[in-house]
């Protein structure tokens, strides 16, 4: 079915799941976590919305949002600097009713005037914990064809208990009707997990928010999906394209490393559906005499004089002479001094590692060095 995506409002929750990667969200929102060499996590849902034809997007944020505001700016890079629609940032205390929210329902209630003001008929809601290149058109199309109240995007696969402990898991019948909902269960094996992306009509959404607030309900997952799954028509949309879900520092590390396999990167970076991000006008990467780089993603502005293997280097990273970088994620502005050797390391922005140091994390538990630290 051909759907009119001009009739859809996007809502992105920038702070949901902040706690699951507490180290990385110390100075920022989940949405502004750096990812994949030159992106921030919010670039994925935002680009997916734009590439699906959504031109009006609200970003709901709560705390630590300076980096988010800096990143999004006027939203021109996502083509969302518009007269009609465009990007709206919705911080707490934006109006008399909005305060620091406790759950998704209160967050939406704080954005109520924005949602009401939109002329859209449908709403796509997304968190920032899924890295994927997703087209929302078939999801909306299925939602309308099914006449569902809520369509939730899910993936059925084999999960470990670590993977699933931050997720919402659903049981469905053969038609994809949700029959029961488990929140952050202690499970492993094959199950159907929510990707925290939902589609509903604007009317359903606003009625649900007002009803929930009146009853003192604050959790969308617990008070709506779980409590009302037999009374509402909740459908799943089974998503089988490439994605990774960030639920911990270890899964963050793994999700970055997965992009070193070209077959994964090619599923994420589609030429016709590019992932947009803030442009920072760095010079090209300079590879020096005697440098050696293997199986790595390197962003512009890096200067490499040493060895780099199986690593993701963000913009403006410097690797000194004789330095060895192996299985690392080095964020923007990190400098590795001459003859230092680092492995299984995640450095936050502007970390400075001096000369002749050896720093090693474990494959299952990479070492994390906080923003601006000097070693």
């Amino acid at each position, binding site marked *: 079915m051909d759907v009119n995506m001009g009739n859809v409002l996007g809502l992105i929750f920038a702070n949901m799941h902040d706690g699951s990667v507490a180290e990385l969200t110390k100075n920022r929102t989940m949405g502004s976590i750096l990812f994949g060499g030159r992106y921030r996590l919010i670039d994925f849902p935002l680009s997916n919305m734009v590439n699906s034809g959504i031109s009006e997007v609200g970003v709901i944020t709560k705390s630590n949002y300076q980096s988010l505001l800096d990143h999004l700016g006027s939203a021109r890079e996502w083509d969302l600097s518009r007269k009609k629609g465009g990007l709206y940032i919705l911080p707490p205390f934006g109006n008399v009713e909005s305060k620091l929210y406790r759950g998704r329902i209160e967050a939406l209630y704080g954005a109520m005037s924005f949602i009401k003001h939109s002329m859209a008929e449908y709403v796509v809601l997304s968190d920032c914990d899924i890295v994927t290149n997703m087209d929302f058109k078939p999801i909306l199309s299925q939602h309308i064809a099914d006449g569902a109240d809520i369509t939730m995007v899910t993936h059925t696969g084999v999960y470990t208990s670590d993977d699933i402990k931050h997720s919402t898991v659903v049981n469905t019948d053969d038609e994809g009707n949700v029959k029961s909902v488990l929140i952050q269960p202690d499970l492993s094996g094959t199950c159907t997990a929510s990707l925290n992306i939902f589609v509903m009509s604007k009317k359903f959404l606003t009625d649900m928010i007002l009803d929930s607030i009146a009853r003192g309900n604050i959790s969308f997952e617990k008070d709506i999906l779980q409590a009302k799954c037999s009374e509402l028509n909740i459908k799943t949309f089974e998503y089988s394209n490439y994605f990774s879900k960030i639920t911990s520092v270890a899964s963050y590390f793994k999700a970055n490393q997965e992009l070193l396999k070209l077959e994964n990167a090619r599923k994420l970076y589609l030429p016709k559906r590019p992932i947009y991000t803030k442009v920072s*006008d760095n010079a*090209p*990467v*300079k*590879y*020096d005499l005697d*440098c050696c780089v*293997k199986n790595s*993603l390197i962003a512009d502005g890096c200067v490499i004089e040493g060895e780099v293997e199986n690593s993701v280097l963000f913009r403006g990273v410097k690797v000194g002479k004789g330095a060895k970088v192996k299985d690392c994620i080095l964020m923007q502005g990190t400098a590795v001094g001459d003859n230092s050797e680092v492995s299984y390391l995640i450095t936050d922005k502007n970390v400075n590692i001096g000369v002749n140091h050896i720093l090693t994390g474990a494959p299952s538990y990479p070492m994390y060095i906080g923003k601006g630290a000097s070693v």
Partner: protein
Amino acid sequence: MFNKKECVAMLLAGGQGSRLYALTQTIAKPAVPFGAKYRIIDFPLSNCINSGIDTVGVLTQYQPMALNEYIGNGQPWDLDRVHGGVFVLPPYQKASGADWYSGTANSIYQNMAFIERYDPEYVLVLSGDHIYKMDYNKMLAYHKAKNADATIAVLDVPKEEASRFGIMITDEDDNIIDFEEKPKVPRSTLASMGIYIFTWSKLKAYLIANENDKDASKDFGKNIIPDMKNAGEKLVAYRFDGYWKDVGTIDSLWEANMDLINPNIPIDLYDPAWKIYSRNPVLPPQYIGSDAMVQNSMVTEGCIIDGSIEFSMISDGVVVEEGAVVCDSILMPGCVVKKGAKVEYAIVGENSVIGENAHIGARPEHIEDKDTWGVAVVGHNINISDGSVVAPKAIISSDM
């Protein structure tokens, strides 16, 4: 007046750039890719904004589409302004008739109305084919301090190279007393860099006079500057001592690219205080594969490198497959070098494909007759079939 600007820049970007052959067959010279992620015009545009000059007219005539699209509203250079900004100025039809730009001076003459809108004291005239970083504001301060009518930026070049340039002869105060174009026996080593600042009221008068002279060639170097000198106007030389290169020929384009990876050449693209801006292609970071070898090179976004690269400039979205070798070469955006191909001392244009085991160019030490050696050029959107050989110095402008 609200719109008043002290200095307006006029960038001459209309020339065909015929000495770049296949590389300028479909695009104007200022739009030719340069330095892995830039186009030539990024340098003067970035210099303008970094110097605080926010009103720039770009005079175009030859194959303007790529250039128009590239410049757009000027946002990548911070030249999308409420007052001023960048404007692409092609020739246009007037009540009195329509004319192509018949020379550099004529192109400015035809756009006097544009300049007058901003009521400037000074006009900066730039070329769209030079690579350099320069603070025009310092030159403007010099122009004002010298109370000059025209200031010409000059570079002190080695004596043996002076005969390739327009040479300025100056007195002890750097007043220009004479000049000569590509002299066999140069009387000075101060070469004109093609960067001029004029006091606008003076320039305007000379442009009008030149236009009324039916026999004049409507050119700055041939008419305006000599006319001003002969009339006794104050012409001064402004000495620049940084890196500057004209990239009007295949060899100089190749050399200027290689200069960026030469540690002894003083042009720094990594200076945060003087960034060179460019339009971003929206591509993921470059991927360097497990079998790749990259040294002494610059590589940018969207590239997938599985082969070997040395002493080369690799633009956005280039793919170099396993076993392919690229040495001392320039690969422009989107080109593909297939398995086992070898590219040496060559420039490969945008979106061209070098087939498996093809061999483009050669190292000079492998050629006996040095006269037959030169940088090989493959134009834009060209397919070179598997196993083909492109000789050094060859210029390929159709599929083979």
